[in-house]
């Protein structure tokens, strides 16, 4: 039985043994990977924690991007207000893809005290019907937050009951924040509903070709059509770089799932190959495409950095027997890029950098930073699972010291302590995650922004160019540090950075 037969996808702590609280070093994690044991790290607990995000946020980042979709949050009023910032991405992304900046539409059933007591299913039913009539969308994603998860509302049951009464496809998505501490479960939650509801074309008769030549052409085209799996942290500019590289191998590209029309997902089942750009993002869905529709997939490297981009291309080329072509492409691209990077290297030489983000993004970016001449002195990954083993090995191979790896769902207090000790020259952090380093006076740069290039060979150059710019005048952060203080006690800076790791009286693994 497939996970997709269940209403709710499994959480990643169960499916992948993913962890969020662990202290290690680059060589330590690489060694564990080699021994095949890193996925067996027991998760820790912190006795002091700071607020983070839950799976609802990354899930919404994907769902809000879908054209012609209305997001209906079934939760208390505030859940999903994060969309106010994600909407900037929706506007920019729709402008880049369709030539018009368009706002997303998101709604909330705004469960109140009465609903908490008497249940919210009736309200949800009425909301679905009104949303269908008011907006006439292709789909309505019904997203459950914490409250329905506790009071027991059955969003799948409601969707099933109402489907025949509305014209939009109803897509239940489970984002009850308290149920998983691994946000990456968000990707599974979204893919789960896509897999269950959007991959089979309903009401379309069997395709009966009239013209044999047309059939052959179509088959030929599909045989070199690939699914390029994007992520919501990737802008159109990054997709274009990957499309460019795949096109130069003679491949046709369909991009899923971010900004893909709900009606277009069925095409994903007909491609010759699916290519992941982030193993943290895609394994749940690509496994299903393979198992159910026989679409093979590659899920290994993230095309960030020179080596990783080349490895990513090689893996794809191998599937189609285009190895020679790929080697020529890689050689030409790498040579051109290395020459272009030369002007930035002198400023990077000897500079130390700390990287913080979702695991794969952080590791692949750290590798890129090594390649352009910076020395990585610390990494904070938001979680850990076995997919990243290959990246820890690459980094350990090139590491100058056995630097710290903090597995933490943000937790800037640990970061403040670590940065105060390591005193790096540069910090790259997640959105809303550069504030700590900035106030410590460290030059900072955001590790993803959908308006900027990060991916492929182009991404290496553009990121290097931006870092060069940051390092050329870090006065903004320096001024902050001279005039502001972070809210941590002096005693905290003197304490060990991992003082609160595993101080809780119990463990979730009990």
């Amino acid at each position: 039985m497939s996970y997709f037969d269940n209403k709710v996808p499994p959480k990643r702590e169960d499916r992948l043994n993913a962890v969020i609280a662990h202290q290690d070093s680059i060589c330590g994690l690489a060694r564990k990977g080699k021994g095949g044991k890193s996925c067996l790290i027991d998760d820790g607990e912190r006795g002091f924690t700071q607020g983070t995000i839950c799976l609802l946020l990354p899930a919404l980042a994907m769902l809000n991007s879908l054209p012609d979709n209305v997001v209906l949050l079934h939760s208390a009023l505030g859940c999903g207000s994060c969309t106010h910032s994600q909407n900037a991405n929706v506007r920019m992304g729709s402008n880049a893809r369709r030539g018009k900046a368009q706002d997303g539409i998101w709604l909330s059933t705004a469960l109140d005290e009465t609903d908490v007591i008497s249940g919210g299913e009736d309200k949800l039913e009425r909301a679905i019907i009104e949303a269908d009539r008011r907006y006439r969308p292709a789909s309505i994603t019904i997203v459950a937050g914490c409250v329905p998860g506790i009071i027991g509302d059955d969003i799948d049951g409601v969707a099933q009951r109402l489907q025949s009464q509305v014209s939009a496809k109803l897509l239940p998505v489970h984002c009850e924040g308290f149920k998983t501490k691994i946000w990456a479960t968000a990707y599974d939650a979204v893919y789960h509903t896509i897999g269950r509801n959007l991959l089979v074309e309903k009401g379309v008769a069997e395709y009966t070709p009239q013209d044999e030549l047309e059939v052959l052409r179509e088959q030929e085209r599909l045989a070199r059509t690939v699914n390029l799996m994007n992520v919501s942290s990737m802008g159109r500019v990054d997709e274009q770089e990957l499309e460019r590289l795949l096109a130069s191998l003679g491949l046709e590209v369909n991009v899923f799932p971010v900004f893909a029309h709900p009606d277009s997902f069925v095409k994903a089942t007909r491609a010759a190959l699916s290519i992941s750009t982030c193993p943290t993002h895609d394994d749940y869905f690509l496994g299903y495409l393979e198992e159910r529709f026989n679409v093979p997939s590659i899920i290994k490297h993230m095309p960030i950095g020179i080596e990783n981009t080349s490895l990513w291309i090689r893996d794809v080329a191998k599937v189609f027997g285009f190895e020679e072509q790929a080697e020529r492409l890689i050689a030409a691209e790498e040579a051109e890029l290395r020459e272009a990077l030369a002007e930035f290297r002198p400023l990077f030489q000897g500079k130390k950098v700390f990287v913080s983000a979702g695991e794969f993004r952080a590791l692949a970016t750290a590798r890129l930073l090594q390649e352009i001449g910076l020395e990585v002195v610390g990494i904070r990954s938001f979680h850990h699972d076995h997919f990243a083993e290959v990246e820890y090995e690459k980094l350990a191979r090139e590491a100058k010291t056995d630097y710290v790896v903090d597995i933490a769902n943000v937790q800037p207090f640990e970061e403040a302590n670590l940065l105060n000790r390591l005193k790096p020259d540069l910090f790259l952090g997640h959105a809303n995650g550069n504030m700590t380093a900035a106030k410590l006076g460290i030059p900072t740069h955001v590790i993803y922004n959908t308006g900027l290039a990060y991916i492929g060979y182009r991404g290496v150059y553009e990121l290097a160019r931006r870092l060069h710019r940051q390092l050329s005048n870090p006065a903004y952060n320096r001024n902050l540090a001279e005039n502001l203080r972070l809210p941590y006690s002096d005693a905290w800076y003197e304490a060990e950075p991992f003082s609160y790791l595993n101080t809780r009286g119990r463990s979730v693994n009990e």
Partner: protein
Amino acid sequence: MSENFVERARYLCSLGGAAATVTALSGGIPILHSASGCAGNFAWTQNGGSGLQVGGYCGGLTVPSSNIQETEVVFGGEDRLREEIASTLKVMKGGLYVVLTGCVPEVIGDDIFAVLNDFRGEGVPIIGAVTGGFRGDSYWGYDLVLQALVKDYVAKGAAKVKGRVNLWGVVPYMDPFWRGNLEGARHLLELLGLEVNSFFTSADTLAGIREAGSAELNIVLSDLYGQGAAQVFQEKHGIPFVTTSLPIGVSASEAFLRQVGAALSLDPELVQQVIDREKRHYYQILEPLTDCYNDLDLQRYAVVVGDANYAVALTRFLADDLGWLPVLTVVTDRVHESGQPAIATRVERLASGFSTNVVFESDASQVLGHLNRVWPRAAGQKYYNSFSPAFVVGSSLDRELALQLGAPHLSVSFPVANRAVLDRGYTGFRGGLRLAEDVFGQIVANR
């Protein structure tokens, strides 16, 4: 307004408003007792809605949070909260710690006061507020924090000091111009020689808030936000309050000064002197705009979309100060029917004699429909009194409406995604000049 959902809600939940409010206090440290995602949700929201302001000394992803999980849902979260508070006191340096609850611990029945009273007993400056998201919106969360301050932080039994007032009603981060607006209103009161505690400006301190019980009057700049706290203040500390609208621009500032002067029985002559001086200054500055105001024909029809504070204050400013024609005023709060008349009457009797149409509507997509009812569309006539030239003052969600109307647009009310706001404010006489600059600036942007 839909009864079944809120479209693109222009507010967070009560926890979101409460957390932002504590962050805005000098030395305030919020401690969330909630699921892990709440803090991140607030940070992302402010990022997109608060004019580029996220957090402060302790906001955003820095706030301590118990991050409760399924284990706590089953066994209760009070022990986890106790541990989190104890750790917070070691790690975070603050002047006041405020425990705020989210939905999950409230639904499972955690009693935060049982926990935090132990710490209070040891002399820790810590209070709490029950702010679960299903209780209301972020404006209510602001009110709940003020109520907690008034009940458990403001010193009791203080002797009243003449000329001392408390001021609130502008919600930090929910009003992207909160700093400037509070400072502008505070400045007006200082012109009258008053000593002001306004909780959240850089001139305010926790020590000042502790002494807030010594004020002789509370001034609430809002028909909705902070009204609960005003009641509690009256009950606990015997301080009466006046409710005013947000004093944006010359007409509203004049009325504000008179209202406060009357409430405090100040010498009317003194009040008049202040008003005369400020108006003289205001019109001296406005004077050189006269040619261009006429030459460029800068009078506009307008649609105003905003929260209960702004919808009223902006409409009044446009009609009474600029001589515009704001024909539709959209109040985006979900105001209970019983509370609607108090807001609506504020724009029914405008000094200019111009009257607008007030609707209560939270959903941006429905505003055009309301306008079409107020101002019917052309039906192919040769001569048609069109809704043009027009201007939309609202939030960044109302850009779409402005596009449809072919009108310039200014984001003022939450969400403000497309402006950088630091301490700009629109209250007071000078605030009116700022707002005039901003709306006229939008009109002539391509000149």
